[in-house]
């Protein structure tokens, strides 16, 4: 079953094109990483899927419904981000108490256990929490809703290392016990890689690729060797990144394209996180070029 279907989705804010052309589909019960640089359009896309904002053109379907102003989508999905707000008249304990009236699958026991584990203060107001603690509370809320579509936008921003690790572990355990469709946006792919089944990479409002993690690992290869030799080898290939190591050595990352005869040069696998970084960098060089 397809939980999300997007066809040529566009969205602009005044003159800024947040989403240019987004087309992809997500099957149920998969954990997908939504990866992209700052300003790639990750947050806008998640807000459209959650029904918070309406797209300009294109077709968006979540559980086969158009999400904007749709009750079915609201009741069965949640977007956890740092803009989540709760009324100041409620304490954290109050929020957890009324949550089941909005989310039918609410797991009060899980919420209480996590709340206790992370040492949150039940009498506090949501708006008075520090960034990290607010993130922790939002994460607890998101997991406990057990929504069929659970989305996290940069969930670990502001959390310390230990809480991050705990968060990812809690997410995985919850997913194993109660599978659901999960979308996590992050610019820290290396941190969430082990949890993911698929990666959706977007850049400048467009989908670059939507592949399984294993396919992404096979996407590119690094080639290092004498300059002329590397240039000769890579002349017909799509170059993602190059770096001159010294007077004689050149290092080039190319898109893998069938078997290659690479005599005289050495090859190196490229991590998914590096692949995403190379593909989404504007110049083919890097920060070093600024200083040359």
């Amino acid at each position, binding site marked *: 079953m397809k939980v999300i279907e997007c066809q040529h989705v566009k969205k602009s804010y005044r003159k800024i094109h947040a989403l240019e052309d987004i087309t992809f589909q997500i099957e149920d019960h*998969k*954990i997908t990483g939504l990866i992209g640089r700052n300003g790639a359009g990750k947050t806008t896309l998640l807000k459209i899927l959650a029904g918070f904002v309406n797209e300009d053109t294109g077709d968006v379907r979540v559980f086969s419904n158009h999400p904007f102003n749709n009750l079915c989508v609201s009741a069965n999905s949640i977007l956890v981000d740092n803009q989540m707000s709760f009324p100041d008249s409620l304490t954290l304990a109050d929020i957890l108490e009324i949550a089941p009236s909005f989310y039918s699958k609410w797991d009060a026991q899980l919420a209480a256990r996590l709340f206790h584990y992370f040492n949150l203060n039940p009498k506090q107001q949501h708006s008075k929490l520090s960034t990290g603690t607010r993130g922790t509370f939002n994460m607890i809320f998101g997991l406990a809703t057990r929504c069929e579509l659970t989305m996290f936008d940069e969930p670990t921003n502001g959390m310390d290392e230990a809480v991050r690790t705990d968060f*990812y*572990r809690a997410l*995985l*355990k919850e*997913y*194993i016990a109660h599978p659901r469709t999960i979308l996590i946006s992050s610019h820290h792919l*290396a941190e969430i*890689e*082990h*949890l*993911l*089944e698929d990666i959706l990479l977007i850049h400048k409002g467009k989908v670059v690729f939507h592949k399984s*993690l*294993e396919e992404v*690992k096979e996407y590119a290869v690094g080639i290092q060797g004498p300059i002329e030799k590397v240039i000769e080898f890579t002349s017909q290939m799509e170059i993602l990144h190059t770096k001159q190591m010294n007077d004689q050595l050149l290092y080039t990352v190319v898109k893998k394209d069938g078997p290659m005869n690479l005599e005289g040069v050495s090859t*190196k*696998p490229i*991590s998914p996180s590096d692949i995403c970084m190379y593909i989404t960098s504007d110049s083919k060089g890097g920060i070093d070029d600024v200083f040359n």
Partner: protein
Amino acid sequence: MNIAADSTKPIYIQIAEWIENEIIADRFKSDEKVHSQYQLADLFNINPATAAKGLTILVDQEILYKKRGLGMFVAIKAKATIIKKRRSETLTRMAMELVLEARRLSVSEDELIQLIKRCEEEQ
């Protein structure tokens, strides 16, 4: 064992190798049930689909077999199959790397054999 996400080896290969090691060490015996994809996911903190891929490649190599609705079991000849495979593939490849490195460092054949003997004694 820890699964290293940043390793050059895909995670599902590392999972398959871990199960193979458990079979070689007789911790999983013939016709015994091995961990499910969900148990492996929990144990190694990875996506269950990745764990399933690790199990699938072992089924393809006839090291594990599937019983419908019951899970994955160790094939009768699993241990022999793994040992045979590792001797012909893994060990040969490692020997090749050893010989290459020795050549790079101008270590003679005799010196290399001496080195291996010494390592054997120290073990």
